[in-house]
């Protein structure tokens, strides 16, 4: 049950880009800040909305 809840939360964080943001901070060795989130978010959203959304 705990494992299911853990996976569910991880899924929600993945869908919310929060996991991707953590990976971004880890890969670039940076710490969280408003400016860093904006930089990450703009790059990620630009890539996401260059692709069609499914019907």
């Amino acid at each position: 049950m705990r494992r299911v809840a853990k996976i569910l939360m991880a899924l929600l964080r993945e869908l919310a880009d929060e996991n991707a943001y953590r990976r971004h901070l880890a890969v670039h060795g940076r710490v969280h800040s408003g400016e860093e989130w904006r930089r990450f978010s703009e790059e990620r959203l630009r890539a996401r909305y260059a692709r069609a959304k499914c019907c």
Partner: protein
Amino acid sequence: MRFLAHVFWVAVAAAGAVCLGGIALSRGEHINSIWLVLAAACTYLTGYRFYAKFIAARVMALNDQRATPAERMRNGHDFEPTNKWIVFGHHFAAIAGPGPLVGPVLAAQFGYLPGTLWIIIGAVLGGAVQDFVILFASVRRDGKSLGQMAREEIGKVGGLIALLTVLIIMVILLAVVALVVVNALRGSPWGTFTIAATMPIALFMGLYLRYLRPGKVLECSAIGFVLVMGSIFAGRSVAESSGLAPAFTWGAMTLAIAIIAYGFLASALPVWLLLAPRDYLSTFVKLGVVLMLAVGILFVRPQLQLPAFTRFVDGTGPIFAGKVFPFCFITIACGAISGFHSLISSGTTPKMIAKESHAWPVGYGSMLLESFVAIMAMIAACVLEPGVYFAVNSPAGIVGATPTAAAAKISSWGFPLDVATMAGLAKQVGEQTLFNRTGGAPSLALGMAHIFARSGGGQALVGFWYHFAIMFEALFILTIIDAGTRVGRFMLQDLLGHVWAPLGRTSWMPGVIGASAFVVGAWGYFLVQGVRDPLGGINSLWPLFGISNQLLAAIALCVATTVLLKMHGSKYMWITCAPLVWLVTVTFSAAWQKIFSPIPAIGFLAQAGQFEQQLAAGTANAATMRVLIFNARLDAVVCGVLLVLVAAILVDSLRVWTGILRGTREARVSEAPFVLSQLQTEEL
């Protein structure tokens, strides 16, 4: 243990066969929706366990020792090995749109049986296979897109056709989903207020996320959800207020113009401000509502009120014209097989797959879940009384513009209906009328509202649940509209950049505005055409969307067949060839009929001819008639272009296949080289 496993799977298969037999052979009495749920679940389990496993083991030879692109090209952004259940949820959230909800609702005009069988069988043998094979092929090719694979496996023509088809689908898709929203909100102050309120809520979320609490997407989405729920409650007060209700009571054309203007603005605004926050919110709402509906159906187990077959299998249906073959199979696209899924299977997902074996649950399993969503939509439509279902979904041009005329017409079809029932139902959900609310969304919302209300809250909450369902549908349709317009703009700018470089720069404002205006103008034109259509735009636009989506599926299956042919010769090509042959038969038959059928309700050219006669007789407004004639001919041309495209890629594929089978063409598999995986799944 092995014996028990055999017994279990024999029992599952037998239960599936019994349930399918039960729903197929039941006549003249109402059946319980649980039969559909069990038939689908058992068939999916059997297909997943045996057919998909056969494809995974024998055909693809999935190998967990082989490093996937997520491992080899890991960069912390796109390429990232991820837990398979997280990728499953991510992939499902990406492929689930309004298609599997609206298509089955419209196809229910034939009765519950044709659509249900197509959803179940089509998904197990066609849709899930397509998604699975394309995902596998992309994983083996460094996460390449469908267009890139089409170019490499078939040739340049295939790649170009894939690009053109996506553009056409986008235009038709955006128009048809916008029409669904227009018809759901027309004359509905409650619905219009709720959807209008999502705009400032999304803007607030965008600012919150960027400046107040950067990175707190889940927290921000939870706040947004509470605010949206509040707006649904407030919507009732707005609808009951004599001062506010008129301000939110809009006609179809006003709504269409508002959505077109919105699409233009949203595609030019920064994505973080409106599009992204609403997309986060709509994804969570979508997953939550799908889960709620599944629990609701299992809890309530409603009886299906629509029969297995209706008289409209003969092609005289009021919702859309055309016989059950081929029109049932293009009306339900996304719930059974959808070409659009191949773009997702060759987009983000292959870059997240940690082990090759994960492609099995992600590619095949997600499509089965999507198919199950379509089954739930079919159930939600079929729990309505047939008279109510047809009253909501039939256009005024078919049943008459007054409630009395519509009730009389629908009753004459053998589906008793009285005006008082419809008036009571409209009052219950806080609408002025439920007659002629075409597009599928209102009837789906009605069915969902009754299931939710019976699950908890009682009849007093039917109005709330109805508008909750409308909000849920409109929320992600609007996200598709602005995201789609933006993508269309990028595609167009990419093409125009070859003509004049500044036009290709996505930061150059004149280029952005011009390209946005062009894309919005293209889908907006079809939307306005749908609003003006005397037979209701769904009759012309939904089949066009279905045909174009199935055409993209045909392209994906051509690529998949080529891949299998290069891997194994002709031994396993039937796996993708069988659904391909079926799709080509369906698409060609439907497109041919939509162009050349002599029946004006079906054939665009016959419809144009009928309008010409009315113009010549002077029985209708000349300017309106000329526009209608042009529109019918334009639809015929679009359909013709789609036919030519599918024919071109088929010929090109056949040329490649024949060459490989004869040995005159090299059957080189263009996979990335084998690299031994170092990744332990426990790390994920």
